[in-house]
C-alpha cells in the first residue's frame, strides 16, 4: 500500500480495517503523495458546490456506466478515466460522498472490478465531514494526467448476473431495499423515481436487510458487534456462506457488499447489479410477494 493505513482503534475490530479512513486521518493526510481523494455523489452537481480540497469527482452515471449498453465501462475506458483523474495503478484512493457513502461504495465496488488494490472509503462521507465543520473548497478540479494501465474488468469474483442468481438459489440472498419494495407494495425506493420494473416483490428466499441498517447515527459504519447482530444473528449468515446482495440497480447493495466483505470478512460476496430493475422485468423468473422470504423454488 502506498499510503499508511488508518490505525485508529475504531476500525480495529473489522476484518479489513485498512479499507476505511476516518475524517481525522484524511484531514491529516490531504496532499500526501500517492493519495487521491475521489468524491462520488448521487447529485451530479454537489461536488461543484463544495468538496474536500484536492478531491476529484467521479460520477457513477456519466463516468462509470457505459453510455450505450447496460454495463460498466471497459478496461480502456477505466484506464482513460483514472489516468485523467491523476490516479495510477498503485495510487491510494479514498472515496467519499453523499447519502452515507451510498454512491462512494458503488464507485469502490467498480474500482474493485478492475482490481484496483488500494481503494478505501472515508467513514461517514460528506455528512460526517460537514458535521465536524471541516472545510470545503469550490476550486475547479485539477488533476495531473498520469498513465493507468488497461486492465480488463474481472466480473466473476464480486459481480453476479441474473443466471448466476438463478444458479445460486438455495444460498443466502440479501435484499437491501426498503421493506415496501421487498414486500411488493412498490417497485421504487420511497421518494425515488420510477426506473422501470414490471413486477414487484423479491427474489424467493431473500432476507430483507435494508442497507442503511449498517449505518450509525454519525453516518459511519456501525461497530462490528452491531453488524454481527444484524447480518449473522438477524439474517442468519454464517462463515463460509456464498452471499449475493441486490437492490434496485446495484448501488445500495454495493454499500452492503462493502460491509459484508471488508467489515465482516465474508469471502466471495457478489453484488447483483441487474437487481430489481432486471429481475422484476425478466420473463419467467420466480418472485415472492409479502414480508416473508418465501421458500427456495425448484427450477
Amino acid at each position, binding site marked *: 500500500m502506498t499510503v499508511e493505513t488508518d490505525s485508529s482503534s475504531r476500525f480495529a475490530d473489522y476484518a479489513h480495517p485498512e479499507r476505511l479512513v476516518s475524517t481525522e486521518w484524511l484531514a491529516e493526510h490531504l496532499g500526501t503523495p500517492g493519495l487521491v481523494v475521489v468524491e462520488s455523489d*448521487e*447529485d*451530479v*452537481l*454537489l461536488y*461543484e*458546490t463544495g468538496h474536500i480540497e484536492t478531491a476529484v469527482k467521479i460520477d457513477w*452515471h*456519466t463516468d462509470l456506466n457505459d453510455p450505450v449498453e447496460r454495463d460498466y465501462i471497459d478496461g480502456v475506458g477505466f484506464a482513460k478515466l483514472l489516468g485523467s483523474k491523476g490516479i495510477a495503478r498503485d495510487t491510494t484512493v479514498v472515496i467519499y460522498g*453523499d447519502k452515507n457513502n451510498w454512491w462512494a461504495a458503488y464507485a469502490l465496488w467498480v474500482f474493485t472490478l478492475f482490481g484496483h488494490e488500494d481503494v478505501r472509503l472515508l467513514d461517514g462521507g460528506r455528512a460526517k465531514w460537514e458535521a465536524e465543520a471541516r472545510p470545503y473548497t469550490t476550486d475547479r478540479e485539477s488533476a495531473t494526467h498520469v498513465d493507468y494501465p488497461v486492465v480488463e474488468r474481472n466480473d466473476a469474483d464480486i459481480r453476479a448476473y441474473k443466471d448466476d442468481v438463478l444458479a445460486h438459489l438455495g444460498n443466502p440472498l440479501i435484499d437491501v431495499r426498503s421493506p415496501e419494495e421487498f414486500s411488493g407494495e412498490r417497485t421504487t425506493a420511497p*421518494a*425515488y*423515481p*420510477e*426506473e422501470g420494473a414490471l413486477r414487484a416483490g423479491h427474489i424467493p428466499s431473500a432476507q430483507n436487510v435494508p442497507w442503511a441498517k449498517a449505518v450509525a447515527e454519525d453516518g459511519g459504519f456501525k461497530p462490528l458487534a452491531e453488524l454481527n447482530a444484524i447480518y449473522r444473528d438477524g439474517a442468519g449468515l454464517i462463515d463460509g456462506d456464498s452471499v449475493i446482495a441486490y437492490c434496485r440497480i446495484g448501488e445500495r447493495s454495493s454499500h452492503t457488499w462493502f460491509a459484508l466483505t471488508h467489515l465482516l470478512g465474508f469471502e466471495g460476496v457478489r453484488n447483483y447489479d441487474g437487481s430489481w430493475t432486471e429481475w422484476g422485468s425478466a420473463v419467467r423468473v420466480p418472485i415472492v410477494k409479502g414480508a416473508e422470504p418465501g421458500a427456495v423454488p425448484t427450477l
Partner: protein
Amino acid sequence: MITELPETLAEIRADFIELDTRERLQLLLEFANELPELPSRYSEHPDLLEQVVECQSPVFIFVEVNDGIVHLFATAPREAPTTRGFASILVQGLAGLTVQQVLDVPDDFPQDLGLSEAISPLRVRGMTAMLGRTKRQIREKTAA
C-alpha cells in the same frame, strides 16, 4: 403544431447549447444558486406544495395563476443542486407567461438543453416531470 418558444426559455436554451458539456454543468449550478426563497405564505404552509416524486431529491412546487399569468414557486434542499437548478430554470423561464404560453411549452423542452450528456438522461427526466406537474396544476386551477 409548432409553437415558438417564449423568449426567456429560448434564451435559456441558447445559453446552454452554446456551452461545452462542462460549462453547461456550471451554468446549471448558477441557476441552482439563483432559486428564490419561497414567500412566507408557502414556507409556512408546506402542505400547500406538491412533491415532484420523479426527482431523486425532495423538490416541491406550487403554481399560482393571477389574471391569467403563471407564477411558479419551488423549493429543494441545498444538497440537491441539480434539482434546484431544474426548478430554477422553470421558475425563471416561465415567469410572467400566460396560461396558454406555459401550456404550449413543448413537454420535451428539458431534453433540448443539451444536459443529457452532462448529467445523464435519467436525471433530466426529473425536470420533465416538474414541467408536466406544473402544467397539470395550471389546468386544474383554470378548469373551474
